[in-house]
């Protein structure tokens, strides 16, 4: 897959957008490291809690969903909230 596949980024955006109060502040950076794809997600400071959740529960759910797409692409996906 030489062409950059944006489907992981798109999915992460789809998942996160309705959860935050300031969707315009969402940025996602994709870093391809061979078999692994790292997605660096950042949101407005006041929205951090909304993507992390108590004991990281929201973050865990977001990762789960994005990983499902990764599985279909045959890639390992890491979502970092920065």
């Amino acid at each position: 897959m030489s062409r950059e596949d944006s489907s992981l980024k798109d999915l992460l955006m789809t998942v996160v957008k309705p959860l935050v109060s300031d969707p315009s502040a969402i940025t996602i950076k994709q870093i391809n490291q061979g078999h692994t794809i790292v997605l660096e997600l950042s949101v407005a400071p006041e929205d951090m809690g909304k993507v992390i959740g108590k004991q990281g529960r929201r973050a865990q759910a977001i990762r789960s969903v994005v990983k499902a797409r990764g599985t279909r692409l045959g890639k390992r996906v890491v979502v970092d909230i920065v």
Partner: protein
Amino acid sequence: MALSIEKSGKTVQRAINEALDELGLSADDVVIEVLDEGEIGLLGLGRRPATVRITVEGPDQDQDSEATEYYGDDEDYAGDPEMPEETETIDYVASILSGIGIHGRISSYREDDTLHIDVTGQDCGSAIGRRGETLDAIQYLASLVANKVSETRIRVIVDIAGYRRRRQDTLIGIAQRTAKKVARSGEPFNLEPMNPAERRIIHATLQDFPGVTTYSEGENAQRYVVIAPESVE
């Protein structure tokens, strides 16, 4: 004398509910024919309403059929609206599924404070995940969206390809087989770790099972049910 009405709705279930409400009858009293299953479509594409025909038969329905003649005032349905958060939640689930790469069909219905979203389609495995982990994540996120603006709490249950129903059957089977073994051997048995909903199924199944008792042990994701012989003291 038979009376039949046709009704369209966003989903088959919704059309049926609306028709039954209009007739003031329950599903047991009528014959339901699905004329068109409709299509919710993903991301609002290919949307087509579902249509059902409801037929009431039998002599004791005569008065009811009279009454339905006068029933046609749409304002009476104000209590059964399609809540905006309901549509948002369904669209959210649809866009997550299409983002994962699942092409299926979504149907939904409201039951008291619970919004059921059922997905059918082929090759859904990756949206379910190991032990339903991805499915639980989708359900959790959907319930966040559903409850974002709503003042009353909405429970959201998402099922994909009947996974939850099958899993429930499996869990009931495991509970009963293990309980029999425990009752016979007198040795407690630890089941594998399960989420709260799954543990609840085990506890409920064995609530009245003679000779055994159940409780949970362990922390968080590692919490599991113990089936133990009932202490005879």
